[in-house]
C-alpha cells in the first residue's frame, strides 16, 4: 500500500517534468529542421510559470469545472498505468478526459472554440476505437486486461500485436495534435482557427492545459512502451523512437482535413486491429 502511494506520488511529480522536457525538445528539433536555432529546452517551463503569473479571466463558470475534470481524468489514467491496473478502464478514462476537454470548449461562446471542439470530437471518434481494439488485442493475447499481466509475459506484445502497434502510431499523432492531424488546435501554427479548443483559456488555466498535455504525452508514450514491457527499457527506447518519428512527420506533413483523418484512422487502424485480433483468436483458439 505504502509502496503504491510512493509510486503514485513519484509518477505525478516526474511525469510533467519529462513531458515538459519532451515538449521543449520538440520545439528545439522543429526549429532546427526549419533552419533556426530554437528556444532553450526548458522553454515550456518558462511558459508555464509565466502563465501562472498572469491575470485570471473567466469567460464562463463551467469552463473551469471541465478543465479540472480534464486534469483529474488524465492523472487518474496515468495512475492506472503506473500501478499496472486495468488497461480497458484506462482507455475509458482517457476517453472521459477527452470529452471534458471538448465540453470545456463548448462551454464558452467563442465560435473558434466551438469549431475546435467539433473537430476534437472527430479526433476522439478517430482514435478511441483503435485504443479499444488495442485493449481487445491485449485481452486476446493475455486473457486479461490487466497491465500487470503484460509485464509477466516474457515475449513482448510487439511480436504478436505489431499491426496494432502501427495503428497506435496513427493514434499517437492524432492525440499529440501534430501535423497532419493538428486539426482541433495546434502547437506551432496558430492562425487558422485562432487556437481552436483552447482559444478561450488564458493565464493560469492555459498553464493547466499545458500541464495536462505533459501528462498526456507521458501516458501515451507509456502505452507505447507496453509493447515491449519486458525488459522495460527497450519499450522506453521504442517509445522515444516513436516520439522522434512523430516530430519528423509533424515537420514534413501538411495539415489534413478532419474527414480525411477519420477515414484514415478507421480504414488503417480498424482493419489492422480486426485482422490482428482475428488472427490471434484463430491461431490460439481462445474461447
Amino acid at each position, binding site marked *: 500500500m505504502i509502496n503504491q502511494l510512493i509510486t503514485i506520488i513519484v509518477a505525478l511529480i516526474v511525469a510533467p517534468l519529462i513531458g515538459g522536457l519532451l515538449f521543449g525538445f520538440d520545439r528545439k528539433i522543429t526549429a532546427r529542421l526549419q533552419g533556426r536555432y530554437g*528556444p532553450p529546452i526548458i522553454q515550456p517551463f518558462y511558459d508555464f510559470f*509565466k502563465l501562472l503569473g498572469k491575470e485570471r479571466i473567466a469567460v464562463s463558470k463551467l469552463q473551469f469545472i471541465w478543465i479540472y475534470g480534464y486534469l483529474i481524468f488524465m492523472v487518474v489514467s496515468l495512475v492506472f498505468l503506473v500501478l499496472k491496473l486495468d488497461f480497458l478502464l484506462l482507455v475509458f478514462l482517457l476517453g472521459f478526459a477527452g470529452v471534458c476537454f471538448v465540453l470545456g470548449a463548448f462551454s464558452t461562446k467563442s465560435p473558434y472554440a466551438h469549431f475546435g471542439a467539433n473537430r476534437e470530437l472527430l479526433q476522439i471518434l478517430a482514435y478511441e476505437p483503435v485504443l479499444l481494439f488495442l485493449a481487445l488485442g491485449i485481452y486476446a493475447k493475455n486473457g486479461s486486461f490487466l497491465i500487470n499481466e503484460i509485464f509477466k509475459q516474457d515475449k513482448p506484445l510487439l511480436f504478436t500485436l505489431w499491426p496494432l502497434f502501427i495503428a497506435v502510431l496513427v493514434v499517437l499523432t492524432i492525440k499529440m495534435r501534430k501535423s497532419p492531424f493538428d486539426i482541433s488546435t495546434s502547437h506551432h501554427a496558430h492562425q487558422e482557427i485562432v487556437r481552436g479548443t483552447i482559444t478561450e483559456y*488564458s493565464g493560469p488555466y492555459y498553464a493547466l492545459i499545458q500541464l495536462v498535455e505533459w501528462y498526456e504525452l507521458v501516458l501515451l508514450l507509456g502505452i507505447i512502451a507496453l509493447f515491449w514491457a519486458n525488459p522495460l527499457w527497450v519499450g522506453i527506447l521504442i517509445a522515444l523512437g516513436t516520439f522522434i518519428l512523430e516530430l519528423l512527420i509533424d515537420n514534413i506533413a501538411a495539415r489534413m482535413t478532419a474527414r480525411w483523418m477519420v477515414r484514415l484512422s478507421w480504414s488503417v487502424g480498424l482493419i489492422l486491429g480486426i485482422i490482428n485480433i482475428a488472427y490471434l483468436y484463430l491461431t490460439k483458439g481462445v474461447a
Partner: protein
Amino acid sequence: MGLIQKSRIKSPWILHFDNSSCNGCDIEILACLTPLYDVERFGMVNMGNPKHADVLLITGSVNRRTARVLKNLYEQVPDPKIVIAVGTCASSGGVFHNCYNVLGGVDKVIPVDVYIPGCAARPEAIIDGVVLALQKLANLRGDKK
C-alpha cells in the same frame, strides 16, 4: 528575481496588430520570425490570440475604424501586458498624421510602453524594443488594473 518574473522575460508571446500601416513594418515583424533573426530563441512566439499574448506589437497609425478594434484587443490581453508601437506611423502618425481619417499614433487610444522608430523599423530595432519592454514587464504585477 522570482521564478515568475524570470519566466516573464523568457517567454514573451506576441500579438501583432496592423492598424493602417503600409505593410512595411508588418513585413519587418514577420522577418523577425524567419531563420535569420529567429526570435523564438528568446521564447518569443507569434500568437494569433489576444488571450494568450503578453506583448502587443502594433504597426501603423490609428484611424477611426481601427481605434475600436485596438481598444478591444488591448482589453482582451490579460495583465501584465506591454504595448509596443512599431514604426513611425504607430509612434506618431508618421506620414499619415494629417489625413482626415487618422487619429494619430497608438498612444491616442491605448497607453504605449515602448516606441520603436524607423520607417520601416528594422528587425534589429524591433528585437531591441521588445527586450527593453521585457525589463518593464518583469516588474509589473499580475493583478495590475
